[in-house]
């Protein structure tokens, strides 16, 4: 349960949601302050999209509380919905309308009219780099342009909270970088952002705080530094090897410096305190236990290793 704060843009606590026998969200609660970017990091099926659907007023919840700027949120709370800008994971645009027409339509639904609407549409078109193609049908745009338009619609009415549900899925690296830059800019302008992703590097780059979600629960929450403290300064060591991997895993797990050891395919993954210092000893044990190590990869502690530590599985499993 997260303590509610008066200054928070979003406050939610104890959210629960089940679809029949499937419990999608068990108990999720967090808050977001103005100008803060909060990341929900978790694998597919962790409950991220269900959580943001409840926060955006798309779904009713079975339990818990959601407040935006102090106003309760529900599917019928039309006034509260003005505070939210949603960027769904799917491209929520009309391909047979131009970018300007898409923006004008959704702007009208948000209550914008006349000159303020025209001005804001022009601003957003400029911001997402589609001014030149504003009249062309969105169906003719590249994937990156469509993604930018998808985001532009969400922020058109200057929402207090912008919700981005995995906005870079299926986007090429160049467009992805452009999207991340524009999100950083919005955050720096004081917009509260809720960002869901299963890309660890995006969460690390964008988010002031991260909630690690798995099986409908927030397993841990905090800044990157706070979360990394959970696994200490331990590194993740991956050995690609052949031979008696089972015996090698058992032998390595017995070492005092090795916290976790697991084998998957021809890879042995270890959580090790100061991996570089203990690498010679680890390779020696692996050789003695009947494995031939072909390559070694060392990852320093990050959100991925935190996730592994907390859930026992990788983010993209």
């Amino acid at each position: 349960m997260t303590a509610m704060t008066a200054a928070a843009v979003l406050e939610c606590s104890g959210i629960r949601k089940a679809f029949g026998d499937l419990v999608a969200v068990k108990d999720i609660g967090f808050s977001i302050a103005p100008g803060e970017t909060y990341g929900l990091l978790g694998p597919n099926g962790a409950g991220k999209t269900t959580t943001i659907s409840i926060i955006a007023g798309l779904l009713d919840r079975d339990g818990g509380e959601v407040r935006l700027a102090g106003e309760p949120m529900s599917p019928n709370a039309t006034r509260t919905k003005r505070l939210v800008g949603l960027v769904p994971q799917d491209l929520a645009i009309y391909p047979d309308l131009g970018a300007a027409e898409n923006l004008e339509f959704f702007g009208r639904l948000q209550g914008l009219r006349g000159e303020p609407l025209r001005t804001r549409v022009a601003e957003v078109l400029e911001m997402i780099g589609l001014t030149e193609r504003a009249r062309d049908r969105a169906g003719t745009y590249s994937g990156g342009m469509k993604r930018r338009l998808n985001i532009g619609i969400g922020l058109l009415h200057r929402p207090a909270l912008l919700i981005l549900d995995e906005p870079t899925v299926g986007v090429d690296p160049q467009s992805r970088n452009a999207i991340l830059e524009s999100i950083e800019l919005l955050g720096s302008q004081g917009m509260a952002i809720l960002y869901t992703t299963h890309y660890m590097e995006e969460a690390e780059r964008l988010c002031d705080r991260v909630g690690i979600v798995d099986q409908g629960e927030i397993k841990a929450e905090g800044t990157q530094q706070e979360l990394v403290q959970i696994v200490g300064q331990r590194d993740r060591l991956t050995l690609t090897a052949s031979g008696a991997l089972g015996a090698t895993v058992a032998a390595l797990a017995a070492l005092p410096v090795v916290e976790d050891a697991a084998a998957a395919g021809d890879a042995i993954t270890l959580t090790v305190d100061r991996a570089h210092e203990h690498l010679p000893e680890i390779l020696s044990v692996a050789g003695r236990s009947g494995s031939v190590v072909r390559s070694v990869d060392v990852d320093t502690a990050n959100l991925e290793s935190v996730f592994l530590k907390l859930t026992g599985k990788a983010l993209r499993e």
Partner: protein
Amino acid sequence: MGVVWTIARKDLKQRLRDRSAYILGIIAPLGLALVFGFVLNPISDFTFSATYVVADLDSGPVTQAFVDDVLSSTEGVKVLTVDTAAEAEALVGVDVGPLGASEEAAGADAAFVFPEGFSADVQSERPVAMQVIGNQASATNAGIAVALAQGYASELTSVRVTVATVEYFAGQPVDRFSTGVEVLGTPNPSALVDDTAATKQLDSVTFYAAGMSIFFLFFTAQSGITALLEERRGGTMARLLSSPISAAAVLGGKMVAAFVVSLLSMSVLVVATTLIVGAEWGNPVGVALLVLAAVVAALGIVAFIGSFARTPEQSAAAGSLVGIVLGFLGGTFFDVSQAGGLIADLRFISPHGWFMQGLADLSAGDLAVVATPVLAMLAFGVVTGGLGLVRLKRGLRA
């Protein structure tokens, strides 16, 4: 209301940019109406025509009245008079050569033979008999001849009864002939109104123009539900529902757009078939009421069917199937009202049937005759549409 119109306007813009909408809403029904109207045999351009021969061996006032007042006043009847029963009998067939009948008289449909003294016997209350000789090759026209004779015989019986009644109350004999003539000239206090469908038919061009218009209306009306399901699949529904508007406004916008597109399609078809092929739709106010009610019925039914669908494809397939079945039952391809019995009655479980019946009634009656078809179609639309919209609203967030 502003939000509803905003959504409707966006949908209309999308529909107007979709070429398939023009094909389905205007080109296909118009094309088929032209093909069916002109290529297939006209099913309802029947005009009665018969040739009857009269052998009046009596030449009295009663037989003359039959020829003048019954046969000659019946539209489409051509009367040929001969002198003998043999001549009359010979003419009701093809072999007329030996009697020297003209080509025109050959193969008459029926002959009436009045024996000598027929008029006198009628006036003296003696039994009388007129003979009707029918041509087997034209059974319908021969049957009509029998019906005309029976009708006249009934009339004579009525006159006899009336004259006898007058004598009874007068207590003395009266001039039977002049009394009979007076009775015959008295207007009948009861009038037969022929209300059979046979008298209320559309000409073939109008029939197919109307049939194809209402048939394709059910495809055009699907646009609203299809658009709704497309929004759900495409992800824009989530964006709509996260906006500060109600789910009812989203549904309302879709329905308004579908209503406008359907009405526009029907209006264009009515005008186009009138101008291009000369379809005679009837009283414009009556036609407008029927079209409006048909659009409501179509929207209601496709909304109900669409509420069971998960994808636009499912909705289109189910809607098309129902549209085709209702179209056939309703007689948009064949005039099932002429079939009689169960098939004719079944057309009223379809809005198509009510629409076609309404237009047929309108062609033979005043504006008030469309009230029942209009109310029936509105009932279809309100009941099915109400259920459909409730189900659709529930499913919007699914």
